[in-house]
């Protein structure tokens, strides 16, 4: 069970990630996207989910029980190669349904002090 005191808390990413042209191109090609120099709309997940995972695992949740429930992105700025991204994750909500723990984490990908993309992942930890 997640400690309810953690709901609302923001965990700042310990390190920043530099987006590479290769990582964007590989992701775009995997999705059949012809614009291989622009991060596709779901590219932020490659940064946000790892941060969410480390926050929730450190909070005592079992990542092997996780199922992705839903996902939302708000894209304020196009991600491109060379951007240095700091990712902060906030546990927005946690509830229990039929023994499953349903946790929504918002991850903000911050570039030069401004949020470029916010990514909300609702993760279901199966009982």
């Amino acid at each position, binding site marked *: 069970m997640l400690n309810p005191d953690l709901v609302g808390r923001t965990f700042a990413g310990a390190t920043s990630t530099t987006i590479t042209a290769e*990582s964007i191109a*590989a*992701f*775009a*090609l*995997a*999705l*059949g*996207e012809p*614009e291989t120099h*622009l*991060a*596709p*709309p*779901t590219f932020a*997940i*490659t940064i946000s*989910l*790892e941060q969410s995972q480390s926050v929730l695992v450190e909070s005592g949740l079992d990542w092997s029980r996780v*199922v*992705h*429930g*839903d*996902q*939302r*992105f*708000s*894209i*304020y700025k*196009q991600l491109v190669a060379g951007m240095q991204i700091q990712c902060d994750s906030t546990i927005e909500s946690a509830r229990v349904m039929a023994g499953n723990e349903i946790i929504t984490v918002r991850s903000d990908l911050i570039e030069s002090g401004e949020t470029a993309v916010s990514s*909300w992942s609702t993760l279901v930890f199966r009982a």
Partner: protein
Amino acid sequence: MSIFKVGELLPSKTYIVNRASLVTYANASGDQNPIHQDEAFAKSVGLENVIAHGMYTMGLVGQYVSSMAGSSSKVREFSARFTKPVVVPAGVNVELVVSATVVELTDEVARLEITATCNQVKVLGMAKAVILL
């Protein structure tokens, strides 16, 4: 003037999902969970077979949205619920069929409601996007 009309059903696109494409997505995304690649493992945890990453399905739908918008740089909001897994048996090309309806237009943006199906079954719920015009 927008090229879209409210209520317009946009042309559908079909994406092929197979075991090889799951490996490509796993490598590109870093998500190497064996339920997306290893049939024996997937079955050992109670799945019918290997399933696609939810984010791969959503990523392909994102490609659809980008193509309708004219560029991935025009996508401002994108959301979906993972309602049914996309099951990917060995040696099968699974067809993911994506379409969308324009539900709202402003001077700047169009709101789309998206349908994504495999074998006539909806695999995403509440799939929506906002694109710049």
